[in-house]
Structure formats: structure tokens, C-alpha cells
């Protein structure tokens, strides 16, 4: 099963964008989200995020990611709603006043979390890591070692996520209640799970490091690539949309 952050092949306009644009545009959205407190702008960004999924042909993956993010966002929403005490009381839960400002802060916080995470994850799903590494090295002149480290880290996310799933299953098979519906209990159970994940991750990285060393990783002294990242009109339009959104974010 293909998970989040895996590359989804295709030939859509988003697939053909310059990898640099695919990194810059989510960063621009991130700026917009922090610049504005306007719920409508944040909702608009959410629609835009889903449009990225639709145009990139990964709408189902976008919805799946949104569903996972909604759980974390709901947790954040409840937490902020209970903690923020400024503003007028709207209603009471167990004697605790929930204020209008608390609700608004909680809503914007939850929306921000979704708006920021979605575009970066989706754009990464539409980008081949080798293209991104090449663009970082050849256009932004980032040393190959660092570009390789960044792309490898991104590439390992789905691998670790799949490992985590298997480890959870292994612990469930031993009677650990990972299949509980109680969210807080589940979070508490994750601690013993971190040990096997850490061990398997370190082992995997050690092997990967040895494998690249054996292929002469440190002998590379010249930047070369058979593909060159090209900045074209769609890239310009995308970045202009990003700039427009930033302006909108600061104005509204």
C-alpha cells in the first residue's frame, strides 16, 4: 500500500513544476497562515490545498491525509479551547467557561495546522526525490552531501511509518491494546513502541550509510546531473499566486 509522502507518478502540471517551486509554494502558504488570523482566508487555503490534490491526481490521498490531520487538529482545538481564558463566555463545560476568543484561537490554530501540513506533504508526493536533490545542488548550489541528507530524510518517512505499523501489529499480537478506541490510552502505549522503531531505524540508516560509502559517495566532487530543473511559466504563475496570498494574508 502506498503511504503518505511516497512519490505518486504522473504527468500533471504540478508534476512538471520545478522542484524548487514545489518547495517554495508550501513555504509561502506557511507564511500566509502565520500572517493571518482570518478564518475565511484559512478556509480558502484549505480549499486550495485540496485543489493541489485534485490537480495533482492524488485527491484521495489528500483526503486521507486530511482525515489523519483532523484528529490532531481536533486535539489541538480542544486543548486551546480549554486553555485560552480571554474573551466573553459563550458556554460552560463542567463549570469551565468556554470563551469566544478561546473558540476563535482554537479554530484558527487547528486550521493553521492542517493548512501548513497538507501542501508540503502533497507537493512532496508529486516530486521525485532525485529531482529535488538535483535542483537543490545545481540551482541553489547546496552541497550535495546536505541535499542528499534532506532527500534521504524525506524518503525514509514512509519507510519508518510502515515500520511503525508493523511494530504496532507485533505489540498488538502480544496483547498490547493498540486497537483500543481510547486516544489517550493509545498515546501512552506508544512509549514502549519507540524502542524497536529506534533500533530498526538506526540499523537501517547504518546500512544505508555503508551502502552509499561503498558506491563512492565521498568521491563525488563535481555537480552533475542528466536532468536540469527548468523554471517555466507555470512556475512563475504558481509563485505569483503564492505572493498574492502572502499579501492577502497580511492585509486581511
Amino acid at each position, binding site marked *: 500500500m502506498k503511504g503518505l509522502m511516497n512519490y505518486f507518478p504522473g504527468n500533471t502540471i504540478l508534476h512538471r513544476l520545478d522542484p524548487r517551486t514545489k518547495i517554495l509554494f508550501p513555504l509561502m502558504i506557511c507564511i500566509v497562515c502565520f500572517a493571518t488570523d482570518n478564518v475565511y482566508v484559512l478556509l480558502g487555503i484549505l480549499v486550495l490545498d485540496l485543489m493541489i490534490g485534485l490537480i495533482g491526481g492524488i485527491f484521495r490521498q489528500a483526503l486521507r491525509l486530511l482525515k489523519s490531520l483532523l484528529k490532531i487538529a481536533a486535539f489541538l482545538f480542544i486543548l486551546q479551547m480549554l486553555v485560552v481564558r480571554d474573551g466573553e463566555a459563550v458556554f460552560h463545560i463542567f463549570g469551565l467557561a468556554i470563551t469566544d476568543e478561546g473558540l476563535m484561537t482554537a479554530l484558527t490554530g487547528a486550521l493553521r495546522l492542517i493548512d501548513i501540513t497538507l501542501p508540503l506533504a502533497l507537493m512532496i508526493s508529486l516530486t521525485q526525490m532525485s529531482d529535488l536533490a538535483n535542483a537543490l545542488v545545481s540551482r541553489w548550489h547546496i552541497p550535495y552531501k546536505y541535499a542528499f541528507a534532506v532527500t534521504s530524510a524525506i524518503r525514509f518517512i514512509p519507510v519508518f511509518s510502515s515500520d511503525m505499523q*508493523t511494530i504496532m501489529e507485533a505489540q498488538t*499480537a502480544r*496483547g498490547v491494546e*493498540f486497537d*483500543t478506541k481510547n486516544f489517550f490510552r493509545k498515546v501512552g502505549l506508544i512509549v*514502549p513502541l519507540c524502542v*524497536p522503531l529506534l*533500533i530498526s531505524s538506526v540499523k537501517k540508516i547504518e546500512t544505508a550509510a555503508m551502502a552509499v560509502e561503498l558506491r563512492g559517495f565521498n568521491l563525488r566532487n563535481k555537480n552533475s546531473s542528466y536532468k536540469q530543473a527548468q523554471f517555466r511559466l507555470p512556475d512563475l504563475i504558481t509563485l505569483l499566486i503564492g505572493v498574492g496570498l502572502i499579501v492577502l494574508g497580511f492585509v486581511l
Partner: protein
Amino acid sequence: MIRFENVSFGYKEEISIIRDVSFHVEKGSITAVIGANGAGKSTMARLMRGLARPDKGQILLDGVDLKTMKASALAAQIGYLFQNPDRQICKNTVKEELEFSLEHTVQDPERKEALIQEVLTALDLDPEAEPFLLSRGERQRVALASALVHKPELLILDEPTTGLDYKECTQIMEYVAGLNQEGMTVVMVCHDMEVVLDYSTRVIVMTDGHVIAEGQTKAIFQNQDTLRKAALLPPQIIGLSQMMGEGFEGISTVAEMADAIEKKAKGGAEK
């Protein structure tokens, strides 16, 4: 013991991995699931343990639908050994590892201690050893011990002999065979046809998500058509008996082969 009834299963957005599979694992048997890579063997083992839920059909454990039970609640009834023991290990010593297994199922400290000591002795494990510093074979034994410490009625082994040398493999399989003698039902997914021939009583052959044959181990290995369909080679002794032709049919052990050769030689001398 466990019954699959028209079970189909697929991971999201992909085609079915298990397609309309029906079979029955008899109580007290050692059943091997064999097939080429990607045939759906490990997925079937996960379904059997309740770690995945079928899209269609039902899986019955002693007549009860697995869907109605939580996977974690089945730990005392079904033991599961994963292909990679490192997935299961999470504590600093072997003993802590076993205690962790019982933490969720056994409350009485004395009973807990007795169960741990029993499995430590049986699998020849040092309780104070650090699991991650042990060899692959020893880690496999620790993982097996943590699956067996509950004394489950059904034990599922996913590739139990992968990465083990001959001695380690024999040690684990002999112990499992001993448990089977005491009444434990065993299902193992296995690529090693020699191990399947030596230890299993029944075989389920899978290819492309379907069960294409099931039956007694020897009978399945004698059926060249089935093995060809599943892209499998028979154990060497059976392959040899098939090559030898007349007078060597149905041979599945070295001793039987020696007898047959002796008989043939005597027959030749008399002529």
C-alpha cells in the same frame, strides 16, 4: 480450530491480495502455508491472527467470528511470531521482555513467574541477557518465547526459519514440534520446503491470492502439477524419488530412499 469461509482481503487502492479463500486448520495439526513470494501467505497469517479484517467472508476461531474480538484480546489464545524478531522486542532484558508479554494478560505474580521460567528453560534463554545484543537466532528464540509465554492454543509462525543456521532452525522447529505433540495447533508460513516436509502434517498451497491445493504434506509434494502452478520446487528427496522413476514412488525420507535402493539392487542381483 480455525476456519476461513470465502475470505477476500485487499489493501486500500490495490487489487485483492486474498481472493475467496476457504480452508480449515485442524486442531492439533502443524499446517504449512507455502507459495511463491507475493502469493498472499503473510497476509493470510495476519488475517488469521486478527491483525487485518477480511473485506468479505469470515474467519472463525472455534466457531467464533474473529471480527467480534479485539486483536489484542486474542494474545492468550493465538501466539504470533513475526518474520523479523526485532519488531517484537522492546525491553532491556529477556525476562522483562517476557514479563511485558504477560503484563496485559496474567495478573497473578506467581503464575507469571512460573510461565516465564518454563519458557526460559525450554528455549534455553538467559533471563538477564540484553535482547538486542543477542545473535539473530537467539533474538528469534526470545521473540518466540514472548509469543509462547501465554501458552496459546494456536501458534502462527511467519517465516520462522529465515536467517537462522541449521542448528538454530532445528532447535526452534523441534521445540515447536514438541509443543504440537502436547496439543498446540501450529500454522507456519514457510519457504523452506525441507522444513515443511520434516515438520508439517498438512500443507496449504497458495498462488496469486488463491488456495490452489490443500492436503497431507507428502501427497501435496508428490503432485508435480500443483507445485509447478505455485512455482515451487519439491524437497530434494522427493525430487530425487521422482527422477528415479519406477519403484521409488511416494518416497519422502532418506531412510525410505535407502530401503528402495537396497530393494532395487537386490532385485537386480537376483535377475
